[in-house]
């Protein structure tokens, strides 16, 4: 019933992850993977195995042979058709790791035919009719011949969303000018700790699976189906998450199901633990996304209409692709008004590992494109970056692009004004623009400076409004001994959140801290608190806890003990958000942010230094200021890693071992200077979740600043030294 969470416990190494819980008698597992990204497996040649070594393949799975995540499937082990390089084919399990390594080298996978690129996709995918609905790309006519729409036709489309508002055809016909542009965001690996791993303990008919993911109930259901077991006999326990990236939703599912399968079949305790290299090469990653856009402008540079085409590289299996594409389509216009819109988003199949659930579920990428687009439009007009934004913001009384009327003040204009004042944006922006215009008169070796501005928001709920994603329950029990137990399967991002929950119970029920217990994140006796992502701990679980405390308080001296209060949330009502017709307000708990980034390029060694970051956060009332600042600073380091150096580049569908050694994550650094402020509207509002907010505004502000400093038009990041060389020296 206790979660180890004190700093001293952590400092002295008492907190254990699944790979730490293994005992001497446990069996280890090596995963045999495909070395091709497509093709059909004809045969797997396995050498004669010692008595205590076992090989488990597709045919040995007794129950359901795939994982089911938000209505989409991933095979647990490949049957015959290969979808990406490194897909698991066979599990080799035994007591001695060394022996397993030797045997692994003797296993051969024989393919039926040579690798070919024009194969059919696996037929097991759900919603197959959507794949071939293949409506003509709406903005195809506007694009040059080698458009991604053509490529999209060649590739397989997992999901497509087309959104219209107003009349774009008329808007483009009336336009004085039409400008085109592109934006792209790169893939990123999750090298956060712990690596995907799971340890399954067999106890009679029951199994306990220790893993480090954040969706224990979904994993339990998948394990029960794969192993043909009763759900009651499967207990899933989540370890404390290290919380530096957002990829723990389903990337740990496969090793966990593998471990449970082996444990039930061999009747042993089994550990499946990926190495960092294995994790880098084969685990889910942030997807790369490409945007192409066209804007219709009138003579004064006013925006008349927009056409945007978005391609998301979903990888081999389309997990959460509906959610991601819908978020892309909703978010790609940012916080700005536009009367005439046509947006098409597609999720494409590729021979890469399935895309992961990274921060914002693609909303960060959408907002990056929105701000880069705004920057290009503002350049065309006379208003300048700040004024264009100010004049086109969605504010109170406006109709959002999804048809929702903003009844309350969202303070976006005040946030924009404040961040501009904080950073002295207007003066610096004018000064750097002037320096660029006077470039002929200045010495070439002068450091080049630039400044960028961006606005963003957090969509703290699932836009697809699916029941399995949206529902969450918690339970609060006051027992006869006067102790309170808070039961939830939610995995806290850090231990401070546990203290916040404890303090809430203590203050609300006037209890002593030693009588308050928070149950471990397990599926046994706990209630399903849903997938732990998108700040749900703050926006959903904490309010539910408050309601439960209120319920216990009301019944405390009326009802006999024990008092049990269960609280649940449901889906957003269709009147608030209609996902099918894409109408309404998809994010009731929206938090906002604004960022200004100042960079300096050294023309001698071509380094691009970020000098200062200003951030203004509007996350409602802040429960713990220190925790909020820590979250933001940690997000800044991760975001800077993504935008300055961490980029996944597949070579012919593969990542090579040397890519792992070349891929360096960004460490925490002394620079840049960071100024963080919290917006105070003067009115009390509930906490709205600030985790991941930095991803929504920092990338666009950074790239705009680099573009200004380098006098370039980079469309994506990271900007490498050779790009700067081409731009500054060659030109």
């Amino acid at each position, binding site marked *: 019933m206790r979660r180890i969470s004190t700093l001293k416990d952590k*400092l002295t190494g008492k*907190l254990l992850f699944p790979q*730490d819980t293994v005992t001497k008698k446990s069996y280890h597992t090596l995963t045999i993977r495909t070395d091709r990204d497509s093709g059909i497996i004809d045969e797997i040649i396995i050498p004669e195995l010692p008595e205590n070594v076992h090989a488990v393949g597709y045919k040995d799975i007794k129950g359901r042979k795939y994982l089911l995540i938000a209505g989409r499937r991933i095979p647990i082990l490949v049957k015959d058709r290969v979808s990406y390089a490194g897909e698991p084919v066979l599990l080799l399990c035994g007591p001695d790791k060394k022996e397993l390594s030797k045997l692994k080298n003797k296993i051969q996978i024989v393919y039926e035919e040579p690798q070919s690129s024009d194969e059919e996709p696996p037929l097991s995918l759900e919603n197959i009719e959507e794949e071939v609905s293949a409506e003509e790309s709406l903005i195809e006519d506007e694009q040059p011949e080698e458009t991604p729409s053509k490529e999209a036709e060649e590739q397989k489309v997992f999901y497509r969303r087309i959104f219209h508002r107003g009349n774009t055809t008329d808007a483009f016909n009336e336009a004085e000018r039409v400008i085109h542009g592109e934006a792209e965001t790169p893939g990123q690996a999750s090298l956060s*700790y*712990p690596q995907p791993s799971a340890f399954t303990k067999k106890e009679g008919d029951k199994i306990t699976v220790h893993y480090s993911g954040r969706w224990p109930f979904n994993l339990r259901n998948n394990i029960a189906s794969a192993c043909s077991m009763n759900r009651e006999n499967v207990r899933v326990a989540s370890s404390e998450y*290290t919380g*530096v990236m957002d990829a723990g939703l389903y990337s740990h599912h496969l090793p966990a199901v593998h471990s449970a399968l082996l444990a039930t079949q061999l009747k042993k305790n089994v550990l499946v633990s990926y190495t960092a290299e294995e994790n880098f090469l084969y685990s889910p990653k942030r997807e790369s996304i490409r945007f192409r856009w066209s804007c219709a402008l009138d003579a004064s540079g006013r925006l008349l209409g927009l056409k945007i085409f978005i391609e998301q590289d979903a990888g081999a299996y389309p997990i959460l692709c509906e959610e991601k594409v819908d978020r892309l389509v909703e978010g790609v216009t940012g916080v700005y008004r536009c009367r005439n819109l046509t947006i098409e988003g597609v999720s494409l199949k590729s021979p890469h590992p399935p895309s992961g659930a990274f921060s914002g579920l693609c909303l960060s990428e959408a907002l990056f494109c929105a701000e880069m687009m705004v920057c290009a439009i503002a350049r065309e007009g006379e208003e300048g970056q700040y004024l264009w934004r100010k004049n086109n913001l969605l504010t109170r009384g406006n109709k959002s692009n999804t048809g929702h009327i903003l009844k309350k003040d969202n303070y976006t204009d005040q946030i924009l004004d404040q961040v501009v004042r904080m950073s002295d944006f207007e003066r610096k922006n004018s000064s750097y623009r002037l320096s660029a215009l006077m470039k002929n008169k200045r010495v070439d070796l002068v450091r080049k400076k630039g400044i960028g501005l961006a606005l963003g928001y957090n969509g703290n709920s699932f836009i697809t409004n699916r029941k399995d994603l949206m529902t969450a329950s918690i339970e609060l029990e006051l027992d006869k001994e006067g102790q309170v137990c808070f039961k939830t399967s939610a995995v806290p991002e850090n231990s401070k959140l546990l203290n916040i929950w404890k303090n809430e119970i203590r203050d609300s029920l006037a209890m002593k801290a030693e009588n308050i217990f928070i149950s471990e994140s397990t599926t046994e006796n706990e209630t399903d608190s849903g997938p732990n992502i998108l700040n749900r701990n703050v926006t959903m679980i904490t309010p539910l806890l408050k309601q439960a405390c209120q319920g216990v308080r009301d019944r405390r001296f009326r009802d006999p003990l024990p008092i049990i209060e269960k609280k649940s949330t449901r889906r957003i009502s269709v009147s608030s958000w209609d996902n099918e017709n894409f109408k309404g307000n998809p994010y009731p708990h929206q938090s906002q942010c604004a960022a200004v980034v100042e960079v300096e390029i050294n023309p001698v060694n071509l380094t691009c230094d970020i000098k200062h970051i200003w951030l203004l956060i509007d996350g409602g009332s802040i429960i713990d200021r220190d925790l909020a600042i*820590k979250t933001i*600073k940690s997000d800044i380091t991760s975001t800077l890693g993504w935008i300055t150096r961490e980029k996944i580049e597949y070579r012919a569908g593969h990542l090579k071992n040397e890519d792992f050694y070349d891929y360096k994550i960004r460490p925490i650094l002394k620079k840049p200077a960071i100024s963080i402020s919290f917006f105070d509207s003067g009115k009390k509002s509930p906490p709205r979740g600030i985790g991941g907010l930095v991803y929504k505004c920092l990338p666009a502000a950074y790239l705009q600043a680099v573009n200004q400093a380098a006098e370039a038009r980079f469309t994506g990041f990271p900007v490498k030294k050779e790009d700067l060389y081409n731009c500054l020296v060659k030109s």
Partner: protein
Amino acid sequence: MKFILNINGKDTEIEASSDKRLSEIIRSDLGKKGMKSGCNCGNCGYCVVLLDDEPVYSCLIPVFSAQNRSIITIEGIAQKSEINNITQGLKLAGVNLCPACAPARMLSIYSLITSRHSVSDEDIEETVLSTNCRCTDFKTLKEGIFFAAGMITRTEND
């Protein structure tokens, strides 16, 4: 091959190939799971141990080179009085480390503070950057180490 390793003051005999990583020996053969092991290539810095009182990445140390040298793991210093001071110092600065990097950071800070009479800015910065985890920020951690160093000096003076 047989090796004798001095782990946390005790001589322990182990059998392993001479090029096996010290981190693997400590975690798998000796069962000391307090120290975490991440990348196995000296990038993440989670596997810090003290080798002759100097912090090193144990994933880069082959077992043969650790023979006849003192190896201190996080379990070896967990009960020391300095740990309380370091914890208090970090807490005071608002440092909330993640469970993955915390043991490595603790060993580096312990080594820095106990091996020197005074610590310089550069020493602290080197210690901060020795573990490549993004769960905290540079300034806060640096402040935490300053506080911890101050607490230990004060305790010694008392």
